[in-house]
């Protein structure tokens, strides 16, 4: 039986056809993956199915009956559930409260919390998704928060589950857990729509795969009959080379150095416990580690967001003691953040205005107090072309761009700032293969130009492919230093988990 079918669905945004006559159907109990470049229209399509957007044209069938989905409530009534790219949880609520919110068990007119907790426990046992029903949601790791989202959706009786890039925020272990869950749900007869940029994951979990490109359906393939290369080619329209060439660049001067750095996190807990390393011009130093082992605190200290408790940092051999972010920027530090929405861009600002933030005090973008928006627009137009930022109107707000295009905008801005040291923190998070390839290319160009690069990533393949030296972080320490040719993903993975720390890897 077809659990879901869309026929000729289109969605028009002003000046932008995000979905162009898309048709497909999903069998009950199937895991159906949707892949496509950034901005291909995946999220838009899911939002249509889930009632957040109304389609400009086309029809939707659920269980082979035509339905009109005008709102999320309609979608929930039709037993659909969506786990969004950005979680919709209330951090201050307990897990139980978050799961039952909007549909609480009641005793009379009162919220029956005890019963709610019991229900949540039963549910979590039944589908073997372990959560602490009484924990405060905001304190939980991302992977667990996602479980809370899934439980919330299941509790409302969802039969069709939509996952929009669920793995983008997960560590490899968490991803593995999620896949176990998905399989279990599949066994229970649930239908799953799954979006991901990681083709390896798609090949692992999906039964069939639909490829979207620029709003159009390129084709639907059986997992059995395809491979990663073919998918990438369908997505991008050409062969994609994720092979990273080895570049030998003479190593230059020390751009950044830190010594015995101790940094506390926002809760006052010492998250960085004495870290020392240096980054030289023309080299990429990769920092591998499971999320939450001090990487964020390291970056915060480096960009002047927090003050180290002790230890020293130097940028271009000048002490960074008590300097401001503005001074660091002036001294030549660029920063690509993984947190595009909060740290990277001012979402309501246009592409034009975002493109120069940080340089807006320099000529030609301003003279004295006066902004020269014509020059800004000229610059932004140039960058939009150079980096192929789509849809390409510099007066679009950054918030209306798809994730990949937002990332390109950040890259365009940071790489055009005068700099000799680049911090790249998960620079390909949420990016499609084409955009990832593009980012890798840019990073290598930077290296060739003699810039010093600190690459922080959770993707081991990225770390191994790009880095000249690799530092492994675990629990606030650098527990090993090695080079790509002397190690493997497996060895790094073990180190990252703190296995065999006492026998530090000698490089």
């Amino acid at each position, binding site marked *: 039986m077809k659990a879901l079918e869309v026929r000729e669905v289109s969605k*028009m*945004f*002003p000046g932008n056809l995000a979905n162009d006559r898309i048709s497909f159907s999903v069998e009950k109990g199937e895991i159906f993956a949707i892949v496509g470049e950034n901005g291909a229209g995946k999220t838009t399509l899911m939002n249509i199915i889930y009632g*957040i*957007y*109304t*389609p*400009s*044209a086309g029809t939707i069938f659920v269980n082979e009956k035509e339905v009109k989905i005008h709102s999320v409530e309609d979608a929930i009534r039709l037993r659909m559930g969506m786990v969004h790219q950005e979680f919709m949880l209330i951090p201050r609520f307990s897990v139980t409260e978050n799961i039952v919110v909007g549909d609480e068990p009641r005793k009379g007119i009162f919220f029956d919390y005890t019963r709610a907790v019991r229900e949540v426990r039963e549910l979590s046992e039944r589908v073997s998704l372990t959560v602490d029903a009484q924990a405060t949601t905001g304190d939980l790791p991302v992977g667990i928060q996602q479980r809370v989202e899934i439980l919330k959706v299941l509790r409302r009786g969802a039969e069709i589950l939509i996952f929009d890039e669920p793995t983008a925020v997960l560590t490899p272990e968490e991803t593995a857990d999620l896949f176990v869950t998905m399989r279990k749900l599949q066994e229970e007869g649930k239908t799953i729509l799954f979006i991901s940029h990681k083709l390896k994951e798609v090949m692992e979990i999906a039964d069939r795969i639909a490829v979207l490109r620029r709003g159009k359906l390129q084709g639907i393939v059986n997992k059995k009959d395809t491979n990663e290369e073919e998918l990438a080619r369908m997505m991008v329209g050409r062969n994609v080379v994720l092979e990273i060439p080895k570049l030998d660049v003479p190593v230059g001067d020390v751009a950044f150095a830190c010594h015995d750095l101790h940094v506390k996190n926002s809760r006052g807990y010492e998250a960085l416990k004495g870290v020392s390393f240096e980054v030289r011009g023309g080299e990429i130093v990769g920092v591998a580690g499971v999320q939450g082992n001090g990487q964020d605190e390291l970056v915060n200290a480096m*960009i002047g*967001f927090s003050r180290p408790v002790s230890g020293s940092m130097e940028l271009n051999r000048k002490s960074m003691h008590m300097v*401001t*972010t*503005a*001074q*660091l*920027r*002036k001294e030549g530090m660029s*920063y690509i*953040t993984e*947190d595009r*929405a*909060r*740290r*990277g*861009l*001012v*979402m*309501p*600002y246009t592409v034009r*205005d975002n493109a120069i*933030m*940080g340089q*807006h*005090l320099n000529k030609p973008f*301003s003279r004295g*107090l*006066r*902004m020269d*928006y014509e020059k800004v627009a000229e610059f932004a137009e140039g960058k939009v072309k150079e980096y192929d930022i789509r849809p390409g109107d510099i007066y679009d*707000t950054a*918030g*209306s761009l798809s994730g990949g295009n937002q990332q390109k905008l950040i890259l365009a801005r940071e790489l055009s700032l005068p700099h000799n040291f680049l911090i790249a923190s998960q620079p390909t998070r949420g990016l499609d293969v084409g955009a990832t390839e593009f980012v890798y290319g840019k990073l290598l160009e930077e290296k060739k130009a003699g810039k010093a690069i600190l690459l922080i990533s959770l993707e081991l393949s990225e770390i191994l492919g790009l880095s000249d030296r690799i530092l492994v972080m675990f629990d606030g320490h650098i527990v090993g230093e090695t080079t790509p040719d002397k190690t493997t993903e497996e060895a790094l993975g073990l180190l990252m988990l703190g296995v065999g720390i006492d026998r530090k890897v000698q490089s």
Partner: protein
Amino acid sequence: MNESNFTNKFLKVFGIENHRHNRRDPLNILVPLVSIALALILGMIVIAASGRNPFRAYALLFGDSGLIPGGSSWPREFAELLIKSAMYIATGLSIALAFKGGLFNIGAEGQFWVGAIVATFFGYWTPVAHTFGAMYAALGSLGWIAQLLHGAVCIIMGMLAGGAWGAVAGYLYVKRGVNIVIGTIMLNWIAWFLITSWLVTGPMTPPSQTFTSGTFYIADTAKLFRIMMPTRLNTSILLVLIAAYATWFLLYKTTIGYEIRAIGYTANIGMDAPRAQGININRRVVQVMFFSGALAALGGTFFILGMQYQFPNTATMGYGWTGITVALIGQAEPIGVILAGLFIGAMRTGATSMQVANIPKTFSDIIEGMAVGFIAMQVAVRYYLVKIIHHRRARTTPPADQEATA
């Protein structure tokens, strides 16, 4: 930070952050206009329900508001409208500018009065008054230069003082974490009591007078020029238009404005994006509060230099609060603030004569309140407007705009 969250939620409700995304969207103008129209229609119903004739009430309200030329009393009403509006626009700009920076400056009221008292002081203080008096006498037919200078001194000192009063709240916020709303409310009361219970009844009152008479009168050279004899219309309306232009310029043409808006747009999520680009948030916040305070104080100087010529003992609060209404109806845009200030000025001018005809002034307050209410229901108003506008288009094409806010 909680207060920026609060302010941003507040602003979102009034549509100020939310639909600015597309600055070319005609709905930005339509929504406030429709809100006012709806308020006026509902106002009629309320008046009718109270057993009065709504048409007669509106005839008086608008006939005597100064908006519609004609009749012998029109010049006076027109003058009153502009004099009132000038002050409302000043406080409206003050609040609008702070909104743009993601701050809720409830302190416009206090800053207004600080500006007023300081302008009074420099208006009458002997060393200053005598200097300009002597200059006026010496210049003969060029005496207006002395008037211009004295007025300017009073206005500038008033604005600096009001700005400083605002900056204190900004400083307390960035350095001590004192919530802007709470800080400015506190400073309002401090200013108000310092002025009315001490300065105006003590050190600034002529010794021979009774305590009910207010401060010294300002020198003639400090008074604003009258520009439409015989009414008391003065240059304040022109000055406030310049201030509105300056505010617009600051926001949309300068590096400071670029930074202020970036801060305001991200205030609810911690302002990390502008901070990571090296923007000095703390300094800008204090600056915004300074500019905001100076604009409110400008209104206060109008109150003294254009209307009262002394700080009267009968002054009542309200100009700063009205500024909030004006900024909200004006959608925190300088041009909107001008129009909204004129609207409120007209309503208040007309209300006086409506009162003469035994229709309580409260009705105009109710209409103002309802206009703000409809603006607060922005999302709904937009939704229906979009529906109406797109009605003739294909039913299957939903307005994209309404979804951006969903």
